[in-house]
């Protein structure tokens, strides 16, 4: 006689297990004060009365965390192995797609590592055990992201230029000062500002605008490893979104006085994050041979619809308003990608990625996606760049750009309503001039000038002689760039190799 198998009843419910293995491991110190153990959680002016109110809906324990994270890694590495064994790189749509992933490996893994460090800091220095444990999980997640991104993209490094020294470039190369300064800015703030800057503004408000374009772009262009990495990381991201949302709600619920501080950080970090992901806009509209959606569409879906019309309606309850400069971002959605890629096109001779004039198929898509603004950019810049090519040349800017002191991007952004008039803003602080691309960046500077005058602006540093020498070859050597890493895609080793692998003859120029 068989007895039907019965699952043994768990001794504790999920909620009880979680509480027993996180909150209940905390204790009230008797021989040191709370302030001595946690010296960083008062100076920002955020008032917390009851840390036990921090909620973590995921209710993970170390056991559950390790079990599921290990499984995610196993699945990912199986795909990476399979792709490498089957020479999957030959199945990409085209070699020029790799430029999107060059920007990814140069601009992201090192900052996942930064996030790992700062969340590790939070895992020690936040007073509440619930908050500490959530930060600990996120710290381990970010380390895993850094590692898996590097492993995922390492396969491509065997076949394509522009990836070999991503770590060194992250520290030195001009456009990579954009993400570097962003993360260092957040890391050098206090723990509460960090939680709003990265936990909330970046990981909740803006995260889909970063990850979906890269991952869907990968899916559409035959990049199985990156797509799989993306899905693997995104499941962690849902915990990160939750931590970020909990952080802002916790601060707002603990004390009304926290509202203006939180609102100011939200305003600041929305803008900082928005400018950072401008690079993604240029990538998704111009660097993908097969495109998923336009920047404009992604912004409308992932920000305007999901955030402004979803999340911010929820936050209204606390008195939170949408970010101060949000209308400027909405106004820019038709032109942002065109302006960013135009920056990248004319300066890629000094970069570790390649650019090229959009081909006929690209232009057809651009026309459909941006029927009002693409024709303007086509006639004002791309047709002229084409004429330079037709005459046997290739337009690269012969000088160095004016950089915004805050976002550090070349000041190619324009006045709202006038896409052919670059925006110029200037502040004078203690007798020195500083320049900005927008009201958003200028306001950030004016609120904390002593912080942002410390900007290590690549162009200024080159002119001070801190980047290897006065000429472009000197700087390129200091950067660690090699021939083939940057400049024009057509005729590059990446391009020629691709044709050779596919048995195609090189077209006559």
């Amino acid at each position, binding site marked *: 006689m068989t007895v039907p198998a019965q699952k043994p009843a768990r001794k504790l419910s999920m909620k009880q297990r979680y509480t027993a293995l996180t909150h209940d491991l905390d204790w009230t110190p008797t021989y040191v004060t709370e302030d001595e153990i946690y010296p960083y959680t008062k100076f920002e002016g955020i008032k917390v009365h009851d840390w036990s109110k921090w909620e973590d809906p995921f209710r993970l324990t170390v056991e559950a965390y390790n079990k599921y994270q290990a499984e995610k890694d196993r699945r990912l590495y199986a795909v990476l192995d399979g792709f490498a064994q089957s020479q999957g790189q030959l199945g990409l749509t085209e070699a020029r797609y790799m430029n999107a992933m060059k920007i990814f490996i140069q601009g992201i893994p090192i900052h996942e590592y930064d996030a790992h460090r700062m969340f590790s800091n939070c895992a020690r220095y936040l007073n509440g055990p619930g908050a500490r444990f959530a930060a600990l999980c996120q710290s381990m997640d970010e380390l895993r992201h850094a590692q898996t991104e590097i492993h995922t993209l390492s396969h491509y490094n065997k076949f394509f230029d522009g990836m070999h020294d991503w770590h060194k470039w992250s520290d030195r190369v001009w456009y990579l000062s954009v993400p570097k300064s962003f993360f260092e800015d957040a890391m050098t703030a206090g723990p509460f500002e960090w939680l709003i800057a990265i936990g909330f503004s970046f990981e909740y408000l803006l995260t889909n605008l970063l990850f979906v374009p890269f991952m869907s772009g990968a899916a559409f262009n035959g990049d199985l490893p990156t797509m799989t990495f993306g899905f693997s990381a995104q499941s962690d991201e849902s915990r990160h979104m939750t931590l970020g949302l909990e952080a802002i709600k916790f601060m707002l619920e603990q004390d009304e006085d926290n509202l203006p501080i939180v609102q100011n950080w939200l305003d600041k970090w929305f803008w900082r994050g928005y400018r950072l992901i401008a690079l993604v806009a240029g990538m998704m509209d111009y660097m993908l041979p097969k495109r998923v959606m336009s920047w404009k569409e992604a912004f409308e879906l992932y920000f305007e619809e999901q955030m402004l019309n979803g999340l911010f309606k929820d936050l209204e309850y606390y008195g939170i308003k949408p970010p101060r400069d949000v209308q400027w971002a909405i106004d820019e959605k038709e032109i942002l990608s065109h302006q960013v890629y135009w920056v990248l096109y004319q300066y890629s001779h000094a970069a570790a990625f390649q650019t090229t004039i959009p081909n006929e198929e690209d232009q057809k898509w651009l026309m459909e996606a941006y029927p009002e603004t693409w024709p303007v950019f086509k006639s004002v810049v791309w047709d002229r760049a084409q004429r330079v090519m037709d005459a046997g040349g290739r337009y690269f*800017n012969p000088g160095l750009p004016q950089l915004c002191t805050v976002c550090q991007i070349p*000041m190619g952004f324009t006045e709202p309503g006038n896409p052919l008039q670059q925006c110029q803003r200037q502040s004078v602080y203690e007798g020195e001039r500083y320049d900005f691309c927008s009201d958003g960046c200028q306001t950030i500077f004016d609120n904390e000038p002593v912080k942002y005058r410390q900007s290590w602006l690549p162009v200024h540093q080159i002119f001070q002689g801190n980047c290897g020498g006065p000429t472009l070859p000197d700087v390129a050597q200091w950067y660690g760039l090699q021939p083939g890493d940057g400049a024009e895609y057509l005729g590059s080793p990446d391009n020629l190799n691709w044709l050779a692998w596919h048995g195609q003859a090189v077209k006559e120029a």
Partner: protein
Amino acid sequence: MAVVANYDYDWPSRSAAEFYGDDQLIHVWWNGNVFFVSAQTFRFPKAMPFGALVNEVLKGFYTADPDFVPDSLDSAKWKIDGVAVTPDMGASLEANGVGHKSLVEFSL
């Protein structure tokens, strides 16, 4: 506004004039031609004549644009830090009011 910090927070600029000696940075902006996606930053001696900037640098620099006519700079309208001026081509940048990180703007 002071930076909120847990110590007396005061750090200098990384691009202060003193780092450039007798030179300074200037931003030259061709307002009306986005072929040059942004203004351009240069490092020049403060004593450099304005006319040298125009004739020896900019007339050559902007030929990267196939439609640029160098002599058109002779009739350009100039602004320095947002103020319309008629530069004295024989005088130095400094004497013309161009300071460290000044914006030298022209339109054609």
